[in-house]
């Protein structure tokens, strides 16, 4: 499908109507006398009293592949078609801190995302995009501080004031040790680096979210909705404690903490998970940390719909799955939603499948009417009961982690990693035995497997890796080496001094066109590398 054949997104639909189809006005929310209303502590029913009536969620589609030019083209396409926030996928060498020509990068350059090995690539990715007007989310953790520094440097170069930048870096290293695997440094220096990014961001880019504490990956790896929320909240508390150790003001930084989850298929359980999470977080912020500013007690979150709930068998069935999950996210009160394409289980989405994923959100937002009243399931006997039970179970899992000695210890010992592996094995066995139903796969499977239609297949360009390496070679030959060396020396000095925030040095390294690999190597020399506890 070519870009020209798609309708333009310029014709914006009206906001969700505030009346029924038969003309009766609908209140923004319905809360009988004496019951908790949306926008009211502890925010079980949502953080805003007007919900999606005043502001729809952000439609955030994850994209980015191959070279910077290809990614820039895809972003222009998505923005022209109604995407309201970009979400940048980076390749594994960028995520793990290796340059494209490193021996560790073999076969991985430009594969699962775009290579952003230096400011040259970031400038290309965001060429002709006005950073003061778009919100950009980066799924980046091990090298989050560096990629964020690069984004700030692009804004500097475009002449966009830093305070206008909006977006998010995931920057949640704790779950990387447990489930996603893009760790670089040991736990302690990693926690310092995260505190540095948050404190720098609060000051320099106050509208930017410097962390998105993510449960998504442990969920996708195998654990339950309860464990997903429990581990994520526990990680959130670890970051709060770290920031307090740096002398930061919780009433201020807690406003910029945000969360990120998967939505799987059990609609009511998912809604209950989000309602319980909002309530637990607000209470912890108020009671444990004495936070008085309500905005700093609010639990804001984005979601992914799809992930491991999608199948490679009969992939078109995934469109139905993603629709149900998106409904759950909306009724749970998500601030931003990413919908997986139906082919995401086995390939990088094509423009065709990516468009259906976006249209799914638009249909729910503009045709279904679910956004007409806040927390539409609030007061349902079942959902309120389920919310209470979910909360109880989440608190139990959090208490067991405390008993173990906290998340940092559980990670360094490999305990949490083992828990996830066991949960994953149990989930797989349930699917194998037929206890968990997956339509089209373990039940109602197609008799003739040759009839399975996988749809159009995305072809990655086999020359991408070589082209990216070529760009790196050119950069190494043309940049000012003395400037690079002095910027890296300044970074090293900052890294060796715990009281100094390393962010300014990282931004300077980016401006000097130092590579991600060079910055990471400098930091490894100071801080060492994480030793993965391999425990089975």
């Amino acid at each position: 499908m070519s870009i020209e054949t798609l309708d333009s997104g310029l014709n914006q639909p009206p906001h969700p109507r505030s009346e029924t189809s038969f003309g009766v006005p609908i209140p923004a929310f319905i809360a009988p006398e004496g019951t908790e209303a949306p926008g009211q502590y502890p925010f079980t029913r949502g953080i805003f009293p007007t919900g999606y009536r005043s502001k729809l969620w952000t439609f955030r589609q994850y994209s980015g592949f191959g070279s910077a030019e290809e990614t820039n083209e895809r972003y222009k396409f998505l923005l022209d078609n109604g995407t309201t926030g970009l979400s940048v996928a980076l390749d594994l060498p960028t995520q793990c801190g290796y340059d494209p020509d490193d021996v560790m990068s073999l076969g991985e350059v430009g594969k699962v995302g775009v290579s952003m090995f230096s400011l040259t690539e970031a400038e290309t990715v965001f060429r002709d995009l006005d950073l003061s007007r778009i919100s950009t989310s980066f799924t980046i953790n091990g090298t989050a501080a560096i990629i964020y520094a690069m984004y700030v440097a692009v804004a500097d170069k475009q002449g966009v004031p830093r305070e206008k930048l909006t977006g998010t870096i995931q920057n949640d290293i704790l779950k990387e040790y447990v489930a996603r695997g893009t760790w670089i440094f040991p736990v302690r220096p990693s926690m310092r680096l995260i505190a540095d990014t948050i404190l720098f961001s609060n000051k320099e880019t106050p509208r930017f979210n410097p962390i998105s504490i993510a449960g998504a990956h442990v969920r996708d790896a195998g654990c339950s909705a309860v464990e997903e929320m429990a581990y994520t909240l526990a990680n959130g508390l670890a970051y709060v404690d770290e920031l307090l150790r740096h002398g930061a003001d919780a009433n201020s930084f807690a406003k910029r903490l945000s969360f990120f989850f998967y939505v799987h298929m059990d609609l009511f359980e998912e809604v209950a998970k989000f309602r319980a999470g909002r309530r637990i977080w607000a209470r912890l912020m108020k009671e444990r940390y004495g936070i008085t500013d309500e905005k700093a007690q609010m639990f804001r979150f984005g979601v992914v719909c799809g992930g491991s709930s999608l199948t490679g068998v009969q992939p078109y069935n995934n469109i139905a799955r993603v629709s149900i999950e998106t409904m759950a996210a909306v009724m749970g009160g998500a601030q931003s939603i990413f919908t997986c394409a139906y082919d995401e289980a086995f390939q990088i989405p094509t423009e065709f499948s990516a468009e259906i994923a976006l249209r799914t959100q638009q249909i729910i937002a503009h045709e279904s009417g679910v956004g007409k009243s806040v927390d539409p399931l609030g007061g349902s006997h079942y959902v309120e009961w389920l919310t209470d039970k979910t909360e109880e179970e989440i608190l139990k899992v959090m208490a067991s982690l405390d008993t173990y000695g906290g998340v940092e210890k559980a990670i360094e010992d490999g305990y949490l990693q083992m828990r996830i592996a066991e949960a994953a094995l149990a989930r797989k066995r349930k699917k194998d035995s037929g206890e968990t139903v997956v339509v089209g796969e373990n039940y109602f499977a197609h008799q003739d497997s040759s009839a399975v239609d996988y749809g159009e297949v995305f072809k990655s360009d086999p020359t991408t890796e070589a082209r990216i390496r070529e760009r790196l070679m050119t950069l190494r030959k043309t940049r000012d080496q003395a400037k690079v060396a002095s910027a890296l020396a300044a970074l090293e000095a900052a890294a060796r001094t715990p009281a100094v925030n390393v962010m300014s040095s990282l931004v300077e390294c980016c401006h000097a066109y130092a590579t991600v690999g060079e910055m990471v190597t400098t930091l490894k020399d100071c801080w060492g590398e994480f030793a993965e506890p391999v425990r089975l």
Partner: protein
Amino acid sequence: MSKLHGKRIVIAKPGLDGHDVGAKIISLTLRDAGADVIYTGLRKTPDYIARVAIDEGADALGLSILSGSHNALVAATMDALRRLGGTDIKVFLGGTIPAEDHQGLKDLGIAAIYTAEMKLNDVVSSLAEKLG
């Protein structure tokens, strides 16, 4: 279940892909089936993996790759096994491997490809049969 009793199997994660759940599920399953399992952990180079498989006297080596970099990493691992003297080790592959790549990977010497949809019991039976 001890279909794999006495077999030594190395499970490895080549490249930078951090999705290790599949590798761990398979490691635990093969151990339950009686095999001695050695899991390498994340981010290992093809040379390192080949060296471990040879030093451990492995009957089989399982590679788990979900990042789409399987063609390059499998070729490099098979090459390392040849160079270091491990051609008698049977090599299996798991992860996100598109059907169109299967033949090419088998041509490189991969004995079997196991994807996420396969039942664990079937994976064990297939391995037991191929390892004799």
